[in-house]
């Protein structure tokens, strides 16, 4: 009899423990009061020193957590149980969160530093009038390549270069449906937000022709591979390319002329925020010229902060590869939220492309 009770108790204890752990995990962002805020950001995407500086200036303590995909971030906000006060999703995700009513409108009177932002990055189609979001960093999608490892001279001014027969088994693609399908669409001159079946079919067919050149489709491991000369060409984001260049100086980066993706990560206040006032203070702080400059130096991506830009090393800010001028930017496109069906379709096409590799 005792055994039975003991075993039953064990089952109940395990269940209770799991429930407890679950609730604890849910509220790691925990006790956001008036003197703390919780910031939810991508990994390696904010100079930690600035968090201390913010606490010194305002007395608000910052709890800092990171995510690795827009979708993971949204799932956590959507399911509740968290109290993130500021998060930094990408533009298409903001469109989606807006539709799902997951954002709190910003009070512009509490963000005077908004004036520091280059007007080019304000009032964009995904958030007219910056009602919900303020730009944080921006960048492009392009080709990182190592001329030392390539026999022939390539400058990758055109996506078409990737299809060259000389590049057999040389190209690494990033494991992300929108980037790869988008490249297929761009290489044919279509919009990377296309929802036209015929255009998508053409892009899929075009991508299938690329398979002999594809070495692998991987995630963040790309950076290490390029740094160690394991790979010569990679389809990647501008900031990742910069990470590679810090270590391996032979690497170059190009954004092909047919067009590519221009992306923005933005600061928003999710519906679940507990300290909305503190969140505004934090956003305003991050927009300060000196703070933005220091942060951009640390992170490496391009800052939309015009006042901060002036404080930075002109050699960095003058680099056309990472701060392309407006003429080049005109050719680039911002992702739109495609809706669940089209997102599914893009992913299915990507899956089919991957399966065609073998």
């Amino acid at each position, binding site marked *: 009899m005792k055994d*039975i009770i003991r075993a039953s108790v064990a089952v109940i204890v395990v*269940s209770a423990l799991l429930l407890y752990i679950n609730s604890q995990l849910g509220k790691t962002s925990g006790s956001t009061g008036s003197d703390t805020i919780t910031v939810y950001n991508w990994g390696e995407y904010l100079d930690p020193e600035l968090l201390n500086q913010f606490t010194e200036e305002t007395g608000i303590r910052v709890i800092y957590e990171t995510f690795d*995909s827009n979708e993971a971030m949204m799932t956590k906000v959507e399911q509740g149980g968290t109290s993130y006060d500021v998060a930094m999703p990408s533009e298409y995700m903001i469109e989606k969160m807006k539709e799902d009513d997951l954002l709190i409108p910003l009070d512009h009177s509490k963000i005077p530093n908004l004036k520091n932002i280059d007007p080019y990055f304000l009032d964009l189609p995904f958030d007219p009038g910056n009602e919900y979001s303020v730009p944080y960093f921006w960048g492009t999608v392009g080709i990182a390549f190592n001329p030392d490892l390539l026999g022939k001279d390539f400058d990758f001014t055109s996506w078409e270069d990737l299809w060259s027969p000389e590049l057999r088994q040389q190209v690494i693609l990033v494991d992300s449906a929108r980037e790869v399908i988008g490249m297929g669409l761009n290489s044919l001159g279509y919009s990377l937000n296309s929802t036209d079946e015929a255009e998508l079919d053409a892009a899929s067919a075009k991508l299938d022709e690329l398979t002999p050149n594809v*070495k692998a489709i991987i995630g963040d491991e790309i950076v290490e591979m390029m740094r160690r000369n394991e790979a010569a060409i990679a389809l990647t984001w501008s900031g990742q390319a910069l990470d590679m260049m810090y270590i391996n100086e032979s690497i170059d980066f190009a954004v092909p002329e047919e067009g590519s993706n221009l992306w923005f990560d933005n600061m928003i206040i999710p519906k679940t925020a507990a300290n909305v006032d503190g969140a505004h203070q934090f956003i305003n702080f991050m927009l300060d010229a000196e703070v933005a400059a220091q942060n951009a130096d640390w992170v490496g991506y391009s800052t939309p902060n015009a006042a901060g830009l002036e404080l930075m090393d002109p050699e960095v800010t003058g680099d056309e590869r990472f701060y392309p001028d407006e003429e080049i930017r005109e050719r680039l496109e911002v992702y739109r939220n495609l809706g669940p069906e089209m997102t599914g379709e893009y992913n299915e096409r990507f899956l089919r492309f991957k*399966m065609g590799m*073998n």
Partner: protein
Amino acid sequence: MQNKSTKALYLIPYGAWILLFVVAPIALVVYYSLFDIHGDFTFSNYKAFFSSVYLELTLSSFWYAFLITLFSLLISYPTAYFLTKTKHKQLWLLLIIIPSWINLLLKTYAFIGIFGQYGPINAFFAAIGIGSTQLLFTDFSFIFVSVYIFIPFMILPIFNAIDRLNPALIDASRDLGASPWTTFRRVILPLTMNGVKSGIQVTFIPALSLFMITRLIAGNKVITLGTAIEQQFLVTQNWGMGSTIAVFLILFMFIIMLFTGQKEKGGASVGKTK
């Protein structure tokens, strides 16, 4: 008076455990699989599974799982056999098992370095004049690493089965004039079949849903059902479709268990005399 009611009482903890941690999760997966992306009740996910993409995916998953199991078995059976013949067999066995205590991800990352363009294998190839070859992101490297990871799980049950084999039966077979090959085929193999079946189970089923190695070692050139589930949940956020694939994976597992299930034929023919 140890009657039925006490027996039933003993079943309560077991029943509660099964209900909470086996039945409930599976029921949830089945439940989710019946809703589409808008949260409407539908069977369309099941219809979608029978479209060409997912069927092809299933076939290729099975093919790779089959290859991984086959090579694991080809290496494990002789290894287990010779292990039982060694003097300190438990020690040798332990040495083979120990690597499986190391985190899977760590081992996988190690292979990225080993197979790399500048890794030791390519350095060796260069030294003997073959020249460096692309090893990473090939079918070969994928199967090699997977086999390496599954071998300890395959060896263990086979080792136990061979170890339990009564040596008198082999002697008898020889005395009656059977050649070594016949002895193996007619005596040793049938009597250790249960170990082989368990080994196949613990290799084939996880191999069906490998997904991390497919990316890190095969560069996503090999796609398994596991990859598809991960994508549906994390990227597409189509939990319905992800659950549907998971339901089929569970079904496949049941079928495999059915085929490799142990038939209780009484211990006398297998075990050493007790």
